[in-house]
Every structure is written in structure tokens, then in C-alpha cells.
């Protein structure tokens, strides 16, 4: 891989009327990486992708692809291809004609383009479906046709806008695996838009967390999850227990805002089990069994409601009923201090607030 990035965005800005969908964004994506854009609805992910693909012209800023300035160039002239959320398969063409379309517009002969298209279909294991219409395929199959169609023209990067958004859970998990495999095989950059944090975490080499048209944090899944730079990221990527200044002082005995992941906390009934590590006492409010794990909601005596995630692994744990008095312990190094710069838009969704969840406008 050369030092030159596959995609370089410089001060990219896109305004729709008075709305800044993308706001002075700088970003470099390397060839061969699986890069995800994660963020709440309306944070500008799609807009960035469409600017890269050439469907939108940026208001200001430049787009470089493989060292060449592409700002203002039409989509057809860019060496990247897109997989659309709704697949955008041509309904009047057979599957193989869909896949061959990019070759057809390039003037590739009938026989050759059919051969190449069939090869591409083979890589997504749809050889047998070549002569069907898109309407005769299931969601997952259509998804794969869209992938074959975008890859048959050998793009240098693939842009995917929530490609799995329309699939149901089981199929989605299956397609995640296939996507990752395909990216390995092709060795090109995948720029992947999602608002599903689990998906982003498991698939990506790097993730950019978007908020209000800007990147809130950029890093590997582990960096984001384990070292969230802001309350927004801590909250948006995975779930977090947040300690504001007051509770941090009362519970942790430290100054500043802190967060800790639910799986880093341990609940004990006996105080001595927590010995050696910092701990706090509280009462079990709810235990939610979730198959591979159990989530416990604990009201600390200091008044903070926190969430603890226990793996239902082979260790046998005691049943903890509501109202049980417990000790919650943690390791000091799992506490994360937050720069509380990021705006507070996402909420700690799966811990019921004692005072009721505040109203939110986004969807």
C-alpha cells in the first residue's frame, strides 16, 4: 500500500439551505481498510458518502481519490462504486444484466461482459440466479447482486450506505460475515455507513463517529470503545455508566466526569468478595436475562442508577432478586475520564432513568 490515501477529504462542507449537513470535515481513508461511519440519524454520514461518490457537489472543500482531485467530477468518472441502501437494482433487467451494466456502458462486448458478470455472481454465490429478475430474489440475495454489480467494474474503493439496514437480524449477521470476507478478498477500501454500533465494532478496521456533520472521534473499534473521547461517543458506542462531577466525587472519590462500561463492573453479595478493588453499595432494581448475558440495574446508595452486564458463562452465579443489597466493584483502570466537550445528544438508552427519560427529537 502506497503512502497515498485512497480517499482524502479536505475541509469538506455541504450545506442544504441553512443546514450544514457536513461541516469542514477532514478525513483520510487508506486503500484496503474497512472504514465505517457511525452516527445518529441526520449526522451527515450519507451526505459525506454521496459527496465521495459524486452524487452531491460539496459547497466547499475538496475530494481527492488516489491522489487525484475529483471535486466537481461526475460520478461516472470516479474510480469508486456505491452499494445503495435500497440496492437500486434495475428492476427491468435480469440479475446478470444488472451485474454486467457497468461493463456495458464501458462498451465491453456481450460475451465478455456476460462471462465477467457470471464470475462476479460466482463470488457472491448466485450463479444459479443469473436469469432471474431482482423482484424474484430475497433481500439478502439482492444485497449480494448489488455487491457483485458494484465490484465487477473493479472499483478502487467501495462505498456502502447502510447496506444491511433493510435485512432482519439473522440475515444481517450472515451478510456482515460475507461483507467482511469480500473485503478481504478484494483488498480494496470499504467505506461503510451504519448507525448500528455493534455492526461497526465487529466489522471495521477504523470507525469515524459522526455528530452534527463533524467527526466526533476517529479510531479503531477498541480505541473508541475503550477510550471514548467524549460523553457522546461513550454513550453512542456501546452503553456506559456515566458519573457526573457530583457522583464521581461521591462514588469514585475523583474529580471530573467519568464513564465505565457495564461489563467492567462486578456485583457481589458479600462485601469481602469485593475487597482489594474500589466498590460501592446499592440495591438490585432489576435483572434482565438476555441469554448469553444478564443485565442488572442497581441503584447505588449515592442515588446513581447504574447498569452491570454479567456474562452467563460457565461460572455459576447466584440468583439475585429485586431488592437484594449488593456491592458493586470495579478496577480503577477501567474508569474513563471524559472531556465533556461533545454535545449531549444521545442518551444512556438501556438504563431506565429514575426520573423518566427526557424527550428527544431525533429518530
Amino acid at each position: 500500500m502506497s503512502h497515498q490515501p485512497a480517499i482524502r477529504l479536505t475541509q469538506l462542507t455541504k450545506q442544504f439551505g441553512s443546514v450544514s449537513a457536513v461541516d469542514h470535515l477532514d478525513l483520510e481513508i487508506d486503500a484496503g481498510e474497512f472504514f465505517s461511519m457511525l452516527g445518529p440519524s441526520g449526522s451527515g454520514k450519507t451526505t459525506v458518502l454521496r459527496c465521495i461518490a459524486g452524487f452531491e457537489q460539496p459547497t466547499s472543500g475538496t475530494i481527492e481519490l488516489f491522489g487525484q482531485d475529483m471535486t466537481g467530477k461526475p460520478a461516472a468518472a470516479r474510480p469508486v462504486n456505491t452499494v445503495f441502501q435500497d440496492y437500486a437494482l434495475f428492476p427491468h433487467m435480469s440479475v446478470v444484466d444488472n451485474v454486467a451494466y457497468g461493463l456495458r456502458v464501458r462498451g465491453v462486448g456481450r460475451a465478455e461482459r456476460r462471462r465477467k458478470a457470471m464470475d462476479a455472481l460466482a463470488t457472491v454465490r448466485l450463479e444459479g440466479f443469473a436469469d432471474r429478475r431482482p423482484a424474484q430474489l430475497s433481500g439478502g440475495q439482492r444485497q449480494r447482486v448489488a455487491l457483485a454489480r458494484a465490484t465487477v467494474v473493479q472499483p478502487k474503493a467501495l462505498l456502502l450506505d447502510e447496506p444491511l439496514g433493510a435485512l432482519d437480524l439473522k440475515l444481517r449477521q450472515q451478510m456482515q460475515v460475507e461483507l467482511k470476507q469480500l473485503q478481504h478478498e478484494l483488498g480494496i477500501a470499504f467505506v461503510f455507513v451504519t448507525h448500528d454500533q455493534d455492526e461497526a465494532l465487529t466489522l471495521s478496521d477504523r470507525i469515524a463517529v459522526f455528530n452534527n456533520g463533524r467527526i466526533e472521534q476517529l479510531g479503531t473499534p477498541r480505541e473508541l470503545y475503550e477510550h471514548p473521547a467524549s460523553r457522546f461517543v461513550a454513550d453512542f458506542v456501546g452503553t456506559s455508566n456515566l458519573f457526573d462531577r457530583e457522583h464521581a466525587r461521591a462514588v469514585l472519590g475523583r474529580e471530573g466526569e467519568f464513564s465505565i462500561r457495564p461489563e467492567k463492573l462486578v456485583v457481589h453479595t458479600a462485601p469481602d468478595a469485593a475487597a482489594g478493588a474500589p466498590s460501592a453499595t446499592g440495591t438490585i432494581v432489576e435483572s434482565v436475562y438476555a441469554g448469553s448475558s444478564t443485565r442488572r440495574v442497581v441503584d447505588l446508595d449515592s442515588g446513581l442508577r447504574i447498569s452491570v452486564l454479567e456474562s452467563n458463562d460457565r461460572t455459576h452465579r447466584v440468583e439475585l432478586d429485586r431488592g437484594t443489597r449488593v456491592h458493586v466493584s470495579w478496577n480503577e483502570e477501567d474508569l474513563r475520564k471524559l472531556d465533556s466537550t461533545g454535545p449531549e445528544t444521545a442518551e444512556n438508552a438501556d438504563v431506565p432513568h429514575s426520573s423518566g427519560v427526557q424527550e428527544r427529537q431525533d429518530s
Partner: protein
Amino acid sequence: MKLLSTPARIVVSLCMAIGLVILYVPLALIVLNSFNSSRTFSFPPPGFTLEWWVDAFHSRGAADALATSVIAGLCAAAIALVLGTMAAFAVQRFRFFGRQSINFLVVLPITLPGIITGIALASTFTALGPLGVTLGMATVIIGHATFCIVIVYNNVQARLRRMGTSLEEASGDLGGSGWQTFLWVTLPQVRGALAAGVLLAFALSFDEIVVTTFTAGPAVQTLPIWIFQNLFRPNQAPVVNVVAAVLTILAIIPVWISQRLAGDSVTSRV
């Protein structure tokens, strides 16, 4: 599920049945009268005859008028096809000042009473007489095309709106040029809507009489004009009935085709 309660369903079905009866009784009467031996459709018919059908098949006047109407309808529909499609594309694929007014402008010719359109066009064409404009086939076609544009426009616009832009973007993304995208992606997608629009436009032109009355010159006699002139003559009225009966029955074919072509629900926008 049954969306209405049983009594409501019965009432609504009854309304439908009555409605269909109302729609078809006059048509049945037309067919009946085409066999009525009375020249003035006296009811009940004093007797039945095939005479009018024989006459109709030998009526060169009706045949000529039919040919004229078909030509006028085809030309008007073709113009409406081109102009309506262009306008629909402009409105659905571009943002521009005054975009909202296009709907209004396009819909106006069909909603203003034909007599106004007819007088206005006729005055203008006559005023242009010194420039060599004479009333004739061309002016009839211009008149018809004007109020047919909306039919194609609405059909295509609705189709484009439902289609969204992603197919066209996908084509561009794969390297397709503007024309390639239009020919290979957009056109096949809107083909049904175009065909349905053209058929309906043709139908509208085919039965138009008022605007035609004002814009047709001496040598042009469309079918409705022929009907108008002959219906009032007892010698000819029964033959007119035969022609109308035949048309009604033949009409099922284009109507059915337009139904098929336009596919889903919006099909049948008028």
C-alpha cells in the same frame, strides 16, 4: 381481512352494482338502438334491423372521419408525449424557481372549459391568418396536444417520483453517461407510464368535440364532428349509433392495455 362489516359491504357492493348498471345502461341502449328499426331511436323499438350495421360498414364518411381522428389523436398524443415527458423530467429531476407553477400551467388547458380554449385558439389562429396559418389538421392537433400534455405529464411525473433517483444514480455510478442512463435505465422504467399516458391522451383527443369545432378547418372532419353532424339527421343517426357501439366495444382493448402497462395502482390516473 374483510375491511368492512357485512352490512357495509353489502351496501357498498350494491352501490357498485348500481353504479355499473348506470354506467352501462346508456351504452346498452346505444347498442340496442343500433338495431332499432326506427330512425329516431323511438323507444321501445318498433322493430329490429341490421340495416344500420350494413350501412355503417359502407359509410365512407365514418371511415374517413375515423381515420382523421386516429391521425389527429396519434399526432396530438405524440406531441403530448414529448412535451409532457420533458416537463415531468424537469420538475422531478431539477429544482428551479417557479417549479410549483408548472403543475398549474400544465393542468390549466384541460380544466378550462373547451369553449374557452377553442375560442382562444381559434381567434389566435385566425389572427395569424396573414402569416399563412389556416384552420386545418395542424390546428386541430395543436389544440388537442395542448390539453393532452397534462395526461402524459402527470403519469410520468408520478412514475418518476415513485422511482426515486437512486436507479439513475446507480447507473451514473457504474459509469453510464446521461444518454445511456436515459435509454437503458430511465426509459424502461417509465415506459409503462408513457404508454398509459399516450393511450389516455389519445382517448381524450379521440372524443374531443368542442375545441375541435373551433379549430378544424373546412377539410377536417374528426369522428366526433362527423357524429355531431350526422346525429342530428334522422337519415344518419342510426349509423352513428352503430359507430358508437363499435367504438365502445373496441375501446376495451386499449383500456385493458393501458391498465396492464401502467401496472400498479396509479395506473388509471385520468
